[in-house]
């Protein structure tokens, strides 16, 4: 019996800590996550423009002089696939407001 009691106390304590952690995570989701997502979106918008400028030559939209664009291309090669999917993805008209969308 005495051996079981510390184990059951430990189990209760573990569950309480897990519940507290879950509550903290829910609170973060309700408060901070939208700022994190918005910041990611703002950064992504700038990155989209930058990659478009760098890769513009290959798309028939020469923006940067080819010498400078070619020097930058190796840094963006890994991001091109994700960029392409992000830019060409089909969008709902209201999607630009989505991350800050409030319920009704």
């Amino acid at each position, binding site marked *: 019996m005495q051996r079981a009691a510390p184990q059951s106390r430990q189990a209760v304590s573990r569950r309480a800590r897990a519940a507290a*952690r*879950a509550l903290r*995570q*829910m*609170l*973060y*989701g*309700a*408060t*901070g*996550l*939208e*700022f994190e*997502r*918005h910041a*990611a*979106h*703002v*950064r*992504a918008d700038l990155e989209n423009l930058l990659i478009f400028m760098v890769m513009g030559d290959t798309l028939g939209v020469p923006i940067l002089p080819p010498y400078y664009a070619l020097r930058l291309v190796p840094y963006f090669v890994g991001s091109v696939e*994700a960029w392409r*999917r*992000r830019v060409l*993805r*089909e969008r*709902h*008209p*209201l*999607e*630009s*407001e*989505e*991350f*800050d*969308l*409030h*319920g*009704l």
Partner: protein
Amino acid sequence: MGNTLVAIIIGVLAIYLGYRFYARRIDRTVIQADKKRATPARLYMDGVDFMPTNRNVLFGYHFKSIAAAGPIVGAITAAALWGWVPSLIWLVLGVMFMGWVSDYSAIVVSVRNEGNSLSATAHRLIHPRTRRLLLLFIFFYLLLIAGAFGNIVAGTLTDPRVPLGIVALAVLGLAAGHMLYRMKMDLIPVTLIVVGGTLLAIFLNASATGPVATTFKNFNTWLNDLRPGGIVTVLNPLNPAGKQSVPITISFVFWLFFLFGFCYLGAILPIWRYAQPVNYIGFWITGLTVVFAGLGAFLAFFIKHDLSTFNIAGFTHFGGPASIRASGQIQPLWPMLFVTIACGAISGWHALIGSVGTARQIENEEDMLPVGGGAMFGEFTLGLLSLLAIAVAAKPGATPVASFAQGIGDFLNIFRVPLTYGTALGFAAFVVIVITVVQLVFRLMRVTLAEGLGDRSPIFKNIHVGTLVSMAATFLLVISGTWIYIWQLFGAANQLMAALSLLVVTVWLASTRRNPLYAGIPAVFMYVTTMAADLVILYNLYKIVLVKQWGVAGHEIAVIGSLVTIIIGLILFVAALFIGWDGYRAFQRYRERPVEPAPAPGGVTA
């Protein structure tokens, strides 16, 4: 006679039974959520749109995205019309068998279709015109929300205990955006400053005889004295016979324009500058009020038993209270209850619009139910709390909003918060949660106008023109005076969107050879109910408002407003007919298709 403890126990049981035995069964046997199947968040992880997120964090995010003013306004209106018993029954059964289905299934369809929205899936599965019709639907739906919520907020702002908190919300919202994004301050100190400042403003304005409230009261009186008969007279069919002609006062119009000014900033400024921080502050104000009021509602039974007892009738009449029946309008329990209480039981907005962002962050398929279904069960608790608040505090002659605020004040009084401050918080929480919705509604209306009309008339792409046109249409709706019908038409549109989203889900289930009944039956029920409700509202608008005011001097604007509302109702009805017919044909098409060989196990399939 009901009480808060019994209602809370019923609510908790509904959540437990609905989630544990029904929702989980569907997740396991019909959808067959597979932890090992890659979700779009993991497949396309780009750290921007597609980002696998912990389920608890996502639950908080999705719950905050969907919980808003709908369950509050709907519950307090329905309780006043038909009593608390049918309102509670619909809230409970609605969320148990339909609400969670709609939200959860929308996320499932999106996750299993590469993160595409429900409308994009409808375009592919049902008919290409479905997406265009949904866009048309959404604009008028947003117009109805703006009209319904704008009316109720402007009316509440004429209460001199309310305005300072909202002014503070606007100013501190701007400050918060600047502090976070320009000054790069940490979120916690910014939260303490702006939320603390807003609460301080609310409490400074709390006392009806205090200097701030007296100033606002004198200001309203001065405005009304400019034109004692109001600027126009409208019909309020909810008032007893002989008192239905109601003047729209200058103070009401002033606060309506104040609301428009508040929302104009939200519609045109970059979202980080104003709308997002205002929503953030509003979340804290409303969240703290709701959480403590909910605890108070539970403890009231043990600490102050008389506070926990319901003050309103359990059931008035199938046709609504006697004054309604005597006026000649019809408000039958079916179908009108099901559109008056919209968001607390089931909501189309969540499914069609609010779920996609969440679906793209689902880390594994087993998170779909706790996040999507769980958040809807969470919103049900908001509707339940609103019902409890009005049930304990309703008084003859008091408006539903005032009764709601009083009820919140009573529940907060359990924790020794003085009634004056508790009631002020109740008012503030209500206005804040509604006003944050309205500012985003105007933003979305501007975007929808630009999307729909911008190619033909480039002027609609101008953000100021789009916003002003939306506000002009809203103004017309608001001063037409028929708030209850606008609210019910909004509810009908919302529930119709729910029916349509369930229809898309049903067609998807049929296309993937899954049992469609768990979504199909709610789809049919909501479709029939909301179409019937639409017709009832059109009848009431025509017979009670339009016919009675036609040709009456001084009621011209009200006549035009009710005509506009009737036309909107007809457009929604016709659009829904098209979508329903296309959906039915698509369902039959997929049902009769021969069974294809099953794909190899372990692949990423729909």
